[in-house]
């Protein structure tokens, strides 16, 4: 009874304007109702989503409603290691702590000099210091195949949550950072049950020496690398789900077409070149289909292309006098969200791949300069991020695929082209907020924001999936180094 009243009230009265009771009381009632709703209805996903109308996930766990802003403290004492691995141990701690902080799941706590680290875990002490999680790390083994042993302790329940050994690449291997990010993502998973996003990369467009080129950067802002080398106009990078390929649009042969780029060694090859312009590629979640925009009688329509058979472009949108472009797949691959001006304003639409008709997702406002663009469907499926104009300036929004729960995430400067991290919680977008062009990462739960990269004409970011499955090549292929070492040992 109370529940249905509350839900009805929410639907008809946006916000809490209609609440007659004093704020404190209203809050109490809300909290109580929320708790009841969560306990009763948590198994039913349709209703469980109802409290998330402003997209703040309410994490229900053992009957406790976690406040989104609450971040449990985690502490990681210095990493034990033999002398020859001391530097690696120090950078391991730096990298993992930064990853845990940037996951926005934890409050990273420092360790005082006087805290005794030897002997069995003193849960009472860590509890007293305010830590909820304790991460103990050690690095062992020879420098050419070090092993990182991580154990995560639940300080509150005084138990060992998880322990695992991670094989690391040889010292100074270019994949060392990725290996440590993977370890950090595992820690996030042990503590929260959901994937981290440290072992990911962001592809983007930036001004290169001879035009705009495709670049890539690690999730923590390290390892910026230029991938394309075409001295032309390169735009709209899109990751393959496996994370080893990027599709993008290029003018390098004059006629704009879709090209593919492998991360190693980074030479682009033609993927699709239909008559006219081909633009805005997007991989399906299973990696078998590429959706993209292409010219039909002077306008742009969305097509799909079978990547396994390498053939058969098929029309996916049918709007006779308007443009459809920038497709993005739902996680099950059955639907796409896309950008279209078919209503005379620029809007986000969702359509079933099997159906002809498309549904409007963003609100139609008469007599306004509406300009919604750059949709990206969350890998969790519940939200679509896009940018839309607020008084003529682009801001980042999210909306449910059924058009409900529109939420504005940015307010200052120009913010465009959002792309979701695989954790469905962080968004990377281009912004001029620092006074120059840059990419920024926003945690949609806490609102925390950080700059990822900065540079001239930096734009169109695309966040990769988790790169955890990328296997290193052991032993490290340093042919030149190995040869040098070999000849050195042969030479007296």
């Amino acid at each position, binding site marked *: 009874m109370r529940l249905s009243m509350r839900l009805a009230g929410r639907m008809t009265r946006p916000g809490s304007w209609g609440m007659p009771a004093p704020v404190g009381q209203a809050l109490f009632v809300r909290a109580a109702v929320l708790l009841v709703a969560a306990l009763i209805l948590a198994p039913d996903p349709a209703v469980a989503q109802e409290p998330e109308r402003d997209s703040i996930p309410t994490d229900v766990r053992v009957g406790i409603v976690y406040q989104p802003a609450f971040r449990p403290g985690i502490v990681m004492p210095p990493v034990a290691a033999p002398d020859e691995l001391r530097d690696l141990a120090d950078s391991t701690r730096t990298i993992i702590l930064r990853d845990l902080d940037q996951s926005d799941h934890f409050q990273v706590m420092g360790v005082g000099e006087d805290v005794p680290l030897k002997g069995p875990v003193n849960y009472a002490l860590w509890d007293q210091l305010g830590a909820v999680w304790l991460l103990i790390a050690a690095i062992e083994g020879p420098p050419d195949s070090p092993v990182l042993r991580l154990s995560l302790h639940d300080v509150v329940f005084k138990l060992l949550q998880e322990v695992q050994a991670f094989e690391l690449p040889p010292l100074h291997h270019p994949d060392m950072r990725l290996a440590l990010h993977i370890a950090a993502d595992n820690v996030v998973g042990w503590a929260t049950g959901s994937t981290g996003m440290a072992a990911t990369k962001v592809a983007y467009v930036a001004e290169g020496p001879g035009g705009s080129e495709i670049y890539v950067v690690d999730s923590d802002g390290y390892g910026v690398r230029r991938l394309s080398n075409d001295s032309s106009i390169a735009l709209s990078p899109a990751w393959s789900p496996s994370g080893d390929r990027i599709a993008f649009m290029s003018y390098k042969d004059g006629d704009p077409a879709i090209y593919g780029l492998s991360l190693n060694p980074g030479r682009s090859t033609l993927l699709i070149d239909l008559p006219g312009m081909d*633009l805005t590629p997007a991989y399906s979640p299973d990696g078998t289909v590429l959706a993209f925009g292409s010219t039909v009688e002077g306008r*742009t329509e969305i097509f799909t292309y079978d990547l396994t058979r390498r053939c058969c472009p098929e029309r996916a949108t049918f709007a006779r006098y308007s*443009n459809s*472009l920038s497709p993005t797949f739902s996680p099950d691959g059955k639907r796409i969200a896309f*950008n279209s001006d078919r209503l005379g304003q620029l809007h986000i639409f969702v359509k079933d791949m099997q159906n002809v008709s498309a549904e409007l997702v963003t609100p139609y406002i008469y007599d306004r300069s509406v300009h919604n663009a750059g949709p990206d469907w969350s890998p969790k499926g519940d939200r679509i991020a896009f940018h839309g104009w607020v008084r003529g300036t682009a801001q980042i929004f999210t909306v449910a695929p059924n058009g409900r729960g529109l939420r504005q995430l940015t307010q200052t400067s120009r913010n465009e082209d959002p792309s979701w991290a695989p954790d469905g919680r962080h968004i990377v977008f281009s912004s001029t907020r620092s006074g120059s062009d840059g990419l920024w990462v926003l945690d949609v739960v806490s609102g925390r924001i950080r700059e990822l990269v900065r540079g001239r004409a930096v734009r169109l970011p695309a966040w990769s999936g988790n790169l955890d499955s990328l296997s290193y090549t052991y032993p490290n292929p340093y042919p030149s180094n190995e040869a040098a070492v070999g000849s050195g040992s042969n030479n007296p």
Partner: protein
Amino acid sequence: MASIGRKNVGWLLGAIALTLVIAACGGGTPEAEPEPEPQVADTRDAAADSAARAAEAKRRAEAEEARRREAERDRVVTIATERVFFDFDKSNIRADAEPVLQRKVSVLREYPDITIRIEGNCDDRGSVEYNLALGQRRAEAVRRYLISYGLDTSRFTVISYGEERPLDRAQDEKAWAQNRRDDFVITNYGRLGAGD
């Protein structure tokens, strides 16, 4: 500097002339011999003169023709490549663009072997990706207009550069209005010749 130089040359020439006159007067010997030779020289000179005159006239006519061709070429290229501009987020032909396109139609009828690439461009306020589609429509709109006057489709190619090639990078309405445009690139000059 140049004028001073020229003035100096004038002085120099004057001085030489003066010296010659003085020399002629000073050496006032009656050596003038009216001989028939000049007559022969005269006829020869007349023939050479008329030939030279003809050559000069031909040269002048050729120069005139070249100038005329150059002017015509300039006229055609100017008309063929004159930009047309668009309203924000629109791809319809504006009223002020019609006379520009009409001039193109007549020039392209006059020179049926000229081919043109129409390049659609946008200001940078809209989405980067949407602007690619919008630029394509702007190029296509002009192509359709030209074709509707009976010009052959095969003479035009279209491409969109979205917001990638602004004329003016400033962030104001004047700059944006300049950037919302179609550029025209002559891809085959035909009998106009590629020129320099």
